[in-house]
């Protein structure tokens, strides 16, 4: 078999050195009644590369790829153009097949990259320190909530109603087991986020307020007043961002007073991939909170000859040292996705990021203008970046399915995101990026017009 280098002769010679007469002598501790005598029955045997590739290609072709449709989905995962050099670099064997950099002398490549990544994320988020990545935005969001509990020693969490429902669900799930109390709200189809309602739910038992920026409906909440209100009660503000490209156009959450900023980094370098692997970003504004952060951190130091080098540091926070007293049970992170993010961000640079953000916003504005011309359709948002909510006056789930049959992927219906909320059913979330063409917009508009007519 092509991945197994031992030949039969090798195996015999090795068994002889070990002093075993056959391979099952080495499995003698497995209770005989549980030992399998041959390949598990009913399962196929090994297959050629050609056959496996063919099978997988067949499955792949059963999916409608985003590039093959007029495509408007967002809601926490965005289709952006990723430069070809990003994939080239992440396929370098020395990055792809390296281990976690616990042996810094022979892992400076990964470590320096992580240090650069942390620095990029911190600047993008307007924070002092970012960690070396987490699983994804939703788990990073929960880790932020848990961290706020450690910092404030309080157990009451206020969630914005306009937080991505999957993120809210993760927080609620985990809180069930840690016995945190969640104060959440229902989302509402209003032109502006309900800051007043949110602030009213903050009390002096509140550990943190969690606000998405831009929010799940594409609106842009004013974090400053929420931060002030939270800080006045001794609570932390956690800002959640699911579209990092937006931060090339709008102020960073750190700048606006968020204490912990977390988010999804998929937009930069990673690609859609049916939802994973993605890239959790995590940063804190105040360096004094560093020791309560979850996840790996890479830091600068010197080697025995005084040369600059990098190491994983502050690992006393982590599970392999602290066991049950760790800040998180996270072990594996999203290293290769962090590399992809960092390479793409390096290619962009500030100039490119700002231009990319401007182009996203330009096209989104065009789309909004065009779509509101459809009778019965209106844009909910006062403000947005590259994603906004349409009201269709009809169940958007059905509309989305009908349009998919025509090869138009029209967006994410609020019914899909919030199945328990019938009052949102006519909402359709439409995302527009630099990959969207004006023809795509026209395709969506005419299709929608026909379906709604």
């Amino acid at each position, binding site marked *: 078999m092509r991945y197994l280098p031992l030949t039969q002769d090798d195996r015999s010679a090795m068994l002889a050195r070990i002093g075993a007469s056959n391979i099952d002598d080495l499995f003698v501790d497995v209770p005989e009644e549980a030992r399998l005598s041959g390949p598990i029955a009913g399962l196929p045997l090994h297959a050629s590369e050609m056959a496996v590739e063919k099978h997988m290609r067949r499955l792949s072709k059963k999916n409608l790829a985003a590039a093959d449709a007029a495509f408007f989905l967002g809601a926490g995962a965005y289709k952006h153009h990723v430069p070809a050099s990003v994939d080239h670099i992440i396929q370098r064997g020395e990055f792809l*097949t390296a281990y976690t950099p616990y042996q810094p002398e022979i892992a400076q490549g990964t470590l320096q990259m992580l240090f650069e990544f942390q620095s990029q994320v911190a600047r993008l988020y307007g924070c002092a320190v970012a960690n070396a990545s987490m699983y994804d935005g939703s788990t990073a969001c929960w880790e932020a909530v848990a961290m706020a509990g450690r910092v404030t020693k309080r157990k009451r969490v206020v969630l914005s109603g306009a937080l991505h429902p999957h993120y809210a669900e993760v927080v609620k799930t985990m809180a069930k087991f840690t016995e945190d109390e969640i104060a959440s709200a229902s989302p509402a189809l209003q032109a502006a986020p309900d800051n007043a309602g949110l602030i009213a739910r903050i009390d002096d038992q509140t550990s943190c307020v969690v606000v998405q920026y831009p929010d799940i409906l594409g609106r842009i909440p004013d974090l400053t007043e929420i931060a002030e209100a939270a800080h006045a009660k001794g609570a932390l503000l956690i800002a959640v961002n699911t579209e990092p490209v937006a931060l090339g156009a709008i102020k960073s959450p750190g700048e606006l007073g968020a204490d912990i900023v977390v988010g999804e980094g998929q937009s930069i370098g990673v690609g859609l991939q049916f939802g994973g692997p993605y890239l959790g970003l995590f940063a804190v504004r105040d360096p004094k909170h560093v020791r309560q952060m979850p996840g790996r951190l890479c830091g600068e130091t010197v*080697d025995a000859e005084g040369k600059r080098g990098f190491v994983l540091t502050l690992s006393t926070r982590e599970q392999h040292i602290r066991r049950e007293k760790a800040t998180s049970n*996270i072990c594996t992170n999203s290293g290769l*996705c962090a590399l992809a993010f960092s390479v793409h961000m390096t290619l962009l*640079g500030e100039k490119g990021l700002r231009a990319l953000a401007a182009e996203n916003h*330009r096209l989104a504005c065009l789309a909004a203008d065009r779509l509101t011309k459809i009778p019965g359709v209106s844009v909910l948002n006062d403000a947005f970046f590259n994603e906004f909510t349409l009201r269709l006056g009809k169940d958007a789930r059905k509309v989305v399915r009908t349009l998919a049959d025509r090869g138009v992927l029209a967006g994410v219906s609020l019914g899909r995101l919030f199945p328990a909320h019938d009052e949102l059913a006519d909402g359709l979330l439409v995302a527009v990026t630099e990959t969207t063409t004006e023809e795509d917009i026209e395709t969506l508009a005419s299709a929608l017009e026909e379906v709604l007519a």
Partner: protein
Amino acid sequence: LEEPLLFEIGHVEQTGVDLPEPPKDSGRGANRLGGFDRAEAIGLPGLSEPETVRHYTRLSRQNYAIDLGLFPLGSCTMKHNPRLNEKVARMPGFADVHPLQPVDTVRGALEVINELAFWLIELTGMYGVAMSPKAGAHGELCGILCIRAALEARGDAREVILVPESAHGTNPATAAFAGYRVEDIPATAEGRVDLEALKARLGPDVAGVMITNPNTCGLFERDMKAISDAVHAAGGFVYCDGANFNAIVGKVRPGDLGVDAMHINLHKTFSTPHGGGGPGSGPVVLSEALAPFGPLPFTARTKDGIVHLVEEENAAEFDHTQAFGRMTAFHGQMGMFTRALTYILSHGADGLKQVAEDAVLNANYILRSLEDVLDAPFGPSGPCMHEALFSDKGFAEGLSTLDLAKGLIDEGYHPMTMYFPLVVHGAMLVEPTETESKAALDQFIGALRSVAERAVNGDETLKTAPHYAPRRRLDETLAARKPVLAWQEPNPPSGSPSLSEQGGR
């Protein structure tokens, strides 16, 4: 050549991308940002594409990797990552689909999940599988939360999880995170769980045990079935840490040993690349008792053969209403699923069995080839599984396992796992995996023998090893005492150009 930091060579005005020029009069200048325009500089340096490719190519060459040599890390299963898997994961139908597309447009993706789930269930002899956990530790948490949900569903609040001394560090962290008190179970002199001690501790307050099998001493827990039976009899559940599944895949099924939940590291046993720290994927196989509590999203195949995605909205339709919640947005690590399925189909049932056999053969070959020069504390306990355990007994005064490991770097290898398991002094856990040839093993054995002899003979130069790596030993204390975790423009002495001015443009 040293590679400078991006921040020292890049420039905020430089970029390695071109964006389409928007047509004139086509929405340029539109602004609906609500007054939140970012005015201040962000401080993100850019590089042109040639500079970018060179920067990262040079950086990569300071790494050790499986593509360069053997990676003897016990319990981490660093093995060859087939390139077919990478190719498949990049097929547009997998790489370029959105997680919230209408289900009819992602049937193939759902089939991947379902096919992989089918294999995982068959290979482990379990009942169901939760696919969404993002990594091993996340999977552990999922398993423990299933146990807690199952106990709560029967109104049976229990407080304690028993964990052997030799457990992976994630195990107690996970149990604590789920709100359990962790208690240790001792090991026997032979290196296995002390069954009698375990039985003695079982009681109505014990929610379950977390066992690693093969255990971290590299041994198979002979009494696994008896342990499971005892735990079940006491009303608890058995969690098995699946990190070492590589040793037994195709040879024995955890389900047959009474396990209730086990996470599977797709980035170990099923060879998705480690990527310098991730991403991984940690699906959790579940027994019939625990499956109803598996988190959303769940995938289910109905009798008509169609694969359905079970989410919050349709859980009732598929009779999956007791799910304990949701652990992540979307559906888990699709990119790892395609790779793992590709790997599994390539090996087939016969190949996977061969994987375990060769992994165990390679480990025993190392154990028996080195036990004359390195102390093997459980050598007399019989064959090891896929990893060989040694200790620092016999080293000259003043030389440690760390010194030997760093010495191994100078021989061209990544060190083995050190100081783990904790039950052995100066432990060294060596896992060669099945993708190493006999020639590669012989070369490694020769190198390790030579370093071990130096450690026994008190060669002081080991204390300053490595000498031939890109860096000498790094000052980790300094890093932790005065953490520098992000780049800061240095304060230049007045009149001298800053680093970015020197290196940049």
